């Protein structure tokens, strides 16, 4: 039997990473698998991807998928700036940023906020377990008020909702999902990958070692009981070129930058992810109702991205030839004359 291949003729093995060193059952591993799978299915050449991360169990995961992509495991909470630099230098790369809730919402919240404002094309995944896994289970800033640690300590501070923050600050693709929701996460990742702006995905990803107990709001069982998908997602890639029939009354269809379509079949009446105010209101309601609202909460494919604002050319700045980066002799002569 011929081996399974994608449209580039690559096999799933071409998207593999090294063996994970995370705990068995860690949500982060499932997310790595979804990333690998969606990149394979989308037919993205691994060499075109730049994986960027901070520090944490979550930030280690770029080692565990797509070894054929360059990867940069930077310092704690500062992946956004490194990603910004790398992608400005080479805008033809597909930027994949992996972070944790501590990495993003605590030490890195400043950089996160400013990344989002710039609308840099980057898929920014927060592998959100409500704790600092790598330093052994302290609460993070996404832990819900009233949730308890493994040893029974109650978290008294309100949680930062990274999706809400991202929407307010100008992210143009914001989704929340669950590491255990294969179908939803996969479609969301694909749409985020073809989106040309900052796509923030907060993926609840249980830490089996430090935050999977009763009293946690980031455990597998809590998610089973409280996940509230706002719509059913499907992704139709541009190259499939199939005419899609859908009922506009029950489905929102978003045309992505490359012509792909993100179909959102409404499970909830009237929710339109293109409406910012509605998105914010609905997320805040979900807090009051103690549900974990998942789905693509907000999307806007119209706003200019950071490359547009910088007015940089289509090819990478990094490899522009000397003729384009060193002005000719007469320019120096002209400047010297003006200073005489």
């Amino acid at each position, binding site marked *: 039997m011929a081996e399974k291949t994608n449209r580039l003729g690559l096999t799933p093995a*071409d998207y593999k990473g*090294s063996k994970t060193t995370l705990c068995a059952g860690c949500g982060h591993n499932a997310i790595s698998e979804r990333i690998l799978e969606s990149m394979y299915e989308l037919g993205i*050449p*691994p*060499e*075109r991807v*730049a994986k*960027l991360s901070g520090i944490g169990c979550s930030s280690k995961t*770029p*080692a565990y998928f797509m*070894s*054929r*992509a*360059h*990867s*940069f*495991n*930077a*310092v704690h909470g*500062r992946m*956004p*700036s*490194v*990603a*910004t*630099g*790398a*992608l*400005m*230098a*080479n805008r*033809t*790369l597909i930027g994949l940023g992996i972070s944790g809730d501590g990495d993003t919402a605590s030490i890195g919240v*400043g*950089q996160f*906020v*400013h990344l989002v404002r710039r609308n840099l094309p980057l898929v920014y995944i927060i592998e959100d377990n409500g704790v600092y896994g790598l330093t052994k289970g302290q609460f993070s800033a996404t832990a819900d008020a009233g949730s308890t640690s493994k040893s029974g300590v109650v978290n008294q501070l309100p949680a930062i909702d990274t999706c809400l923050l991202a929407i307010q600050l100008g992210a143009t693709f914001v989704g929340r999902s669950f590491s255990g929701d294969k179908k939803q996460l996969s479609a969301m990742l694909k749409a985020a990958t073809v989106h040309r702006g900052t796509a923030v995905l907060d993926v609840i990803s249980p830490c089996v070692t430090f935050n999977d107990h009763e009293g946690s709001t980031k455990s597998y069982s809590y998610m089973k009981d409280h996940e509230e998908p706002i719509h059913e997602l499907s992704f139709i890639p541009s190259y499939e070129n199939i005419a899609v029939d859908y009922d506009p009354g029950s489905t929102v269809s978003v045309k992505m930058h490359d012509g792909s379509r993100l179909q959102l079949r409404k499970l909830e009446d009237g929710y339109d992810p293109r409406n910012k105010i509605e998105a914010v209101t609905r997320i805040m309601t979900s807090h009051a109702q103690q549900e974990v609202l998942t789905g693509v909460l907000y999307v806007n494919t119209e706003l200019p991205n950071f490359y547009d604002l*910088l*007015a*940089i*050319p289509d090819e*990478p*700045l*990094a*490899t*522009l030839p*000397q003729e*384009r*980066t*060193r*002005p000719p*002799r007469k*320019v*120096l002569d002209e*400047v*010297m004359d003006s*200073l*005489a």
Partner: protein
Amino acid sequence: MSQSASTVINDMSLQVATVNGSGSQSANMVLLRTLFQMGIPVSGKNLFPSNIAGLPTWYTIRASKDGWIARKKEVDLLVAMNAETAREDVLSLRPGSAVVFDEPLQLGSVRSDLAFYPVPFDKVIQPVSSDAKLKKLLKNMAYVGVVAHLLGMEMGEVEAAIAKQFRKKAKAAELNVRAAMAGFDFAKASLEKKDPFQVRRMDANRGKIIIEGNAAGALGAMFGGVTVVTWYPITPSSSLVETLIGYMRRYRMGADGKSTYAIVQAEDELAAVGMVIGAGWAGARAMTSTAGPGISLMSEFAGLAYFAEIPAVIWDVQRVGPSTGLPTRTSQGDVLSTAFLSHGDTRQILLFPGTVEECFRFGAEAFDIAERFQTPVFVMSDLDLGMNYWMSEPFSYPEKPIARGKVLSKEDLQRLGGFERYRDVDGDGITYRTLPGTDHPAASYFTRGTGHNEKAQYSERPDDWVNNLDRLERKMETARRELPAPILDGTGAEVGIIAYGSSHHALVESRDQMLREKGLKTDYLRILAYPFSPEVRAFVDRHPRVYVVEQNRDGQLAALLKLDLPAELTTRLKSVAHIPGLPLDARSLTDEIVAREGR
């Protein structure tokens, strides 16, 4: 006016004392330019407060027929326009100095051993404009006219300097010329020359330019092919990137109307350096510019870039610390901490430009060095060099093509079959890298700040760790031999002097003083880079006593040298460290070295 025996020609220092925000900067530039255009070697130093308006500020201009351009300790002619400091300014003058002052300040009675020139500036300026706001500005240009008359400056050159200063505003230029004339005419009619100071046309400046170090650094970066620039505003480094923005908009737009660069004002220095490191990793020539507080913030990233081996260019335009310190005063106080910036066994490459020409040259070469060694390069400028105007020969166009270092292309990989990111193939400690996006299945590697082996895989093995750190050390040894070599002046003297950066200008004058006044011969080695060249050791080896001159309290470069030299040589080093918050002057150095030499 007769030329008495006591006339002092083209050798004087003029100080203008005003209030910050009063618009005196243009007037001071006109004075500086006039002297420059008259062919007299000149330098200007702005002593300004950390304030937008209201606090005292002093601008010092030195004219020196001998070409000395460091700050002169003594002020010969004071222009006292600031009521708040006038008395103290006058009291600090040497007998025989001259004072031009705004008449209402009534300084004439403060001392009897000075030449006083009262000028009723409000009255002088009255016929020029009746607009109160303008008058405040024009008063400054009126003192230019007064000074021009007293010193014998050519009014034609004053007019030309005003035209240059206001080149885009013809109307303002005309008004300012009238204000200067009003001052000149008043002085001619009402002031009797009582001091010895005069200027006379010379021909020492033919072909020369005047520029600040920050602008020179910006030009260097542009001609060095910079493509990514990030910054967070901080005095005294802001003007480097601000000037760069101006030049890049003008000269680095592509034919397609797109920028061949990206400049980003980051949210802080952590982000600024993070972006530079991301961009350097992806293959761009990336830089940022900052000062002490920003350098401190960059520490964690600086260690990452050293250890993960990523090129980056970071300008540190030094000001006085610790902490916020004296934000608008010059120093060389970041040398030691930056040499080891970050935790663990981190070592950084430093460059020490001492002239605006070197700011330009290093502005470009820093990228070659950073890409050659795949590590951060810190260009250690300072406020004096960066923000003050200096004369220079015009800069030369970089002749060497841009060198991108050991980067493997797709074709290289096809030929080689693969590569190991951290393997020392050439024995110089410098390994090969690939850029993200290289279209070859073996191109990728994993960049990390954690322990790694030659294949860039995570490793905690002691042998991998030691192997890697030893190689990083080897790389620095290669750098030691390849970085800009020190500049030697003089041989055979018993006394050696080491200096670097902007201290150079006071030191060359001081050496001349020591020789002329005390017959003290000295050899001088100016250091341009760290890790130190082997020539530094050889220099110390040849001199029983070596004074290390610098602008900080602790003798930071002397300390770095002591770490580098064999124990038996370290006792030869004598630290001469000054940090009064003012640019270094020759006299203070001469006094100290002469005393320590027992002369």
